[in-house]
C-alpha cells in the first residue's frame, strides 16, 4: 500500500501503457483485449482519483527519473490542476468504454481499437503530469499518432480525408511547438518547466523569447482549436466513430488548453499586449464556433463546432488572468469535458434510436425514447448554461470575472454566445426529439442499456456539480491560485535552494 501511494504519480501513465502493451500482444484475441482494456481503464481512473486525493491539500508531488536530479533529468509533477485533469480523463475514459461495449464493432476491435485507445490515454495523462517541456512535446506526438489511428479506424473515404487534414495541421502545430522549445532552450539552456519558471523572469526579454511565446500560443492554439486556427476540428471529428469522437471531444483539445495554461502561467507571464491578443482570440473562438454550429444539420457537426465555442470561454480565463478568471477557467474545463463527451455519446444514442445523425431525417424520439430525451436535456441545458446545472456556474464565474476585470465586452460576447448555444441545443431537441419523425417507424429501435448507463453516469456528475458547486469552486480557486504563482510549482519540483540552468 505504501508503495502504491509513493508511486502515485506514475500509475496514471504506467497502467494504460502496460494495458496497451498487453492488448497489443493479445492482437488476435479481441475478447481478451476487451477485458484487459476495461480493467486497465478502471484501475487508471482509481489511480488518478488517488492522485487527486493526495494533491487535494495543496501538496505538489514530483519525481525525477533515471537517477538525475530535477533540472537535469525528466521530471513529473502534479499540482491540483494536473491531478484534476488526470482524474476527469480517467472518469471519462471509463464512461466511454462502457458506452463502447455496445458501440464498438468487431471490425474496429480487430483494427486495434483497444491498444490505440490505451496508448492515447497514456499520452494524455503523460502530458498532464510531465514537468519537462520537451517531454510534453513527446507526449503530444504520441497522442497525435494514436489519435490518428483511432480516427481512421474504419478506413472509409471520409475518415481518410478527415484524418489527413487532422494529421497535417496537427503535425504543423507540434513542429511549431518544437521550434518554440528550441528557441527557449537556446536562450535559457534548460527544459525543465520548474527551472524555466525560475530562469525566465531573470532573463532579459528579447525578440527570441517573444517569438517563442508567439510560437507556443500558435502551436497550442491549433491543438486546442482557438480562433482562427480551429478549421481542422470540424473537418475531421464528425468522421470518427462516435465513441472515439466523444473521447476526442472531451480530452484532446483540452490537452492543448492545459498546455497553454501551463506555459502562459509558468513560463511566460502574459503581458498586456499578449493578453489583448488572447482576449480577441477568445472572443473569436466563442463567436465563430457558435456561428459555425448554427448552419449545421448533422448532430456531430453541431457538437464539433460547439467544442470550439466552449474553448473560447476557457481561453477567456487565460486572457483575464485574474485569480477569479483562472478559477472559472479551471471549473469550466472540468464541466466542459464531462458535458461535451456526454453530448457526443448522446449523439451516438440518437443514431441508434433514429438511424441517422441528420436532424432533418430524425424525429419523434420523445415519444419512443422518453428516458433518452430526459438524459439529453441535462447536458444540453448544462452546455447552454441554464441553472442549476454545472454550465451555469462555469459561465457565471468566467463572465463575473470579465466584468470585475473591466472587460465588459468579453462578458457581453460570452452572454450572447450562451444565447446562441441555447438555440443550437433547442434545435437538436426540437428536430430529434420533439417533431414527428418524417418517416414514421412501426418498430421502436431500443438503445442498448450500457449506452444509457454511460450517459446517465456522466449526466449524474453534471447534476452533482451543478447542485453542489461549492467544493468544486473552492478546488478550482485553489488550483487557480497555484497556477498564478509559479514559485509554488518551482519550489515543489526543485526544492528551496534550487539550481539554475547551465548555459549551453
Amino acid at each position, binding site marked *: 500500500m505504501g508503495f502504491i501511494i509513493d508511486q502515485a504519480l506514475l500509475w496514471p501513465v504506467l497502467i494504460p501503457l502496460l494495458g496497451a502493451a498487453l492488448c497489443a500482444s493479445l492482437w488476435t484475441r479481441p475478447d481478451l483485449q476487451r477485458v484487459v482494456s476495461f480493467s486497465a481503464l478502471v484501475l487508471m481512473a482509481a489511480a488518478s482519483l488517488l492522485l487527486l486525493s493526495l494533491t487535494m491539500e495543496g501538496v505538489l508531488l514530483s519525481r525525477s527519473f533515471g537517477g538525475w536530479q530535477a533540472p537535469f533529468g525528466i521530471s513529473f509533477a502534479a499540482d491540483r490542476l494536473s491531478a484534476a485533469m488526470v482524474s476527469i480523463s480517467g472518469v471519462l475514459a471509463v464512461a466511454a468504454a462502457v458506452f463502447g461495449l455496445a458501440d464498438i464493432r468487431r471490425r474496429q476491435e480487430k483494427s486495434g481499437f483497444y491498444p490505440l485507445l490505451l496508448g492515447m490515454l497514456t499520452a494524455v495523462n503523460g502530458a498532464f503530469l510531465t514537468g519537462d517541456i*520537451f517531454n510534453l512535446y513527446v507526449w503530444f506526438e504520441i497522442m497525435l499518432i494514436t489519435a490518428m489511428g483511432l480516427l481512421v479506424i474504419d478506413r472509409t473515404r471520409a475518415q481518410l480525408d478527415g484524418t489527413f487534414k487532422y*494529421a497535417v495541421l496537427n503535425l504543423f502545430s507540434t513542429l511549431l511547438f518544437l*521550434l518554440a522549445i528550441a528557441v527557449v532552450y537556446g536562450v535559457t539552456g534548460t527544459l525543465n518547466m520548474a527551472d524555466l519558471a525560475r530562469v525566465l523572469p531573470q532573463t532579459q526579454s528579447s525578440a527570441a523569447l517573444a517569438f517563442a511565446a508567439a510560437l507556443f500560443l500558435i502551436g497550442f492554439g491549433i491543438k486546442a482549436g482557438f480562433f482562427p486556427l480551429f478549421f481542422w476540428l470540424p473537418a475531421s471529428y464528425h468522421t470518427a466513430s462516435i465513441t472515439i469522437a466523444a473521447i476526442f471531444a472531451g480530452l484532446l483539445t483540452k490537452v492543448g488548453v492545459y498546455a497553454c495554461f501551463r506555459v502562459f502561467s509558468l513560463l511566460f507571464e502574459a503581458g498586456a499586449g499578449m493578453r489583448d491578443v488572447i482576449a480577441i482570440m477568445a472572443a473569436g473562438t466563442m463567436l465563430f464556433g457558435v456561428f459555425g454550429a448554427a448552419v449545421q444539420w448533422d448532430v456531430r457537426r453541431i457538437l464539433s463546432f460547439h467544442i470550439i465555442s466552449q474553448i473560447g470561454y476557457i481561453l477567456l480565463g487565460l486572457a483575464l488572468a485574474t485569480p477569479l478568471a483562472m478559477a472559472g477557467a479551471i471549473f469550466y474545463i472540468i464541466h466542459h469535458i464531462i458535458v461535451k463527451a456526454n453530448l457526443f455519446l448522446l449523439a451516438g444514442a440518437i443514431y441508434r434510436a433514429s438511424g441517422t445523425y441528420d436532424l432533418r431525417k430524425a424525429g419523434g424520439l420523445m415519444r419512443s425514447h422518453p428516458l433518452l430525451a430526459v438524459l439529453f436535456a441535462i447536458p444540453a441545458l448544462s452546455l447552454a448554461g441554464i441553472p442549476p446545472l454545472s454550465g451555469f456556474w462555469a459561465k457565471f464565474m468566467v463572465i463575473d470575472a470579465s466584468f470585475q476585470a473591466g472587460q465588459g465586452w468579453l462578458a457581453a460576447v460570452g452572454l450572447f454566445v450562451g444565447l446562441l448555444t441555447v438555440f443550437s441545443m433547442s434545435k437538436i431537441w426540437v428536430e430529434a426529439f420533439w417533431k414527428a419523425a418524417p418517416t414514421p417507424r412501426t418498430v421502436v429501435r431500443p438503445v442498448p442499456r450500457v449506452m444509457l448507463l454511460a450517459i446517465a453516469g456522466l449526466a449524474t456528475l453534471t447534476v452533482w456539480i451543478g447542485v453542489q458547486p461549492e467544493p468544486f469552486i473552492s478546488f478550482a480557486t485553489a488550483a487557480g491560485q497555484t497556477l498564478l504563482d509559479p514559485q509554488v510549482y518551482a519550489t515543489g519540483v526543485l526544492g528551496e535552494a534550487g539550481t539554475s540552468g547551465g548555459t549551453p
Partner: protein
Amino acid sequence: MNLVYCAGIAAIMGCGIFMLLSRHIMRIIFGVMLISASVNMTIFLAGRIGPFAPPLVRSGETVLDATAANPLPQALVLTAIVIGFSLVAFAAALALQTFRSSGTLDTRELDQAERLGSPENKEARP
C-alpha cells in the same frame, strides 16, 4: 558562421512551407518533412555548435569535461527525428490508402469528409 546556418535553416523552412501549401498530398508530406528537418537543425544550433569532443564522462568523474560537446541537443534531435519519421511514415500510408480508395491525391477532389453530414443536400458516398 551562425548567420550562414540561420540562412540555411530559413531556406529549408521556406521550401517546406511552400510545399505545405501545395494541393498535392505527397508534396504536403514532403513539406512537413522539410519543416521537421529545419526545426531539428534549429534545436542543434540552439545547443551551440562549438566543441567536437564526444560528451563522455570519464570513469571516476561526476561532471562532463568543459571541452566536450553539448549532449542534450543530440538527444533531443534524435528523439525528434524518430518521432518525425514515424509520423511521416503514417502520413505516407494514409496517402497510399487515400489514393487506393479515392484514386486521386489532389486535395481539391478529396472532399468526402466535407460531404459527410454536409448542411447542403449533398449525399455522402460511403
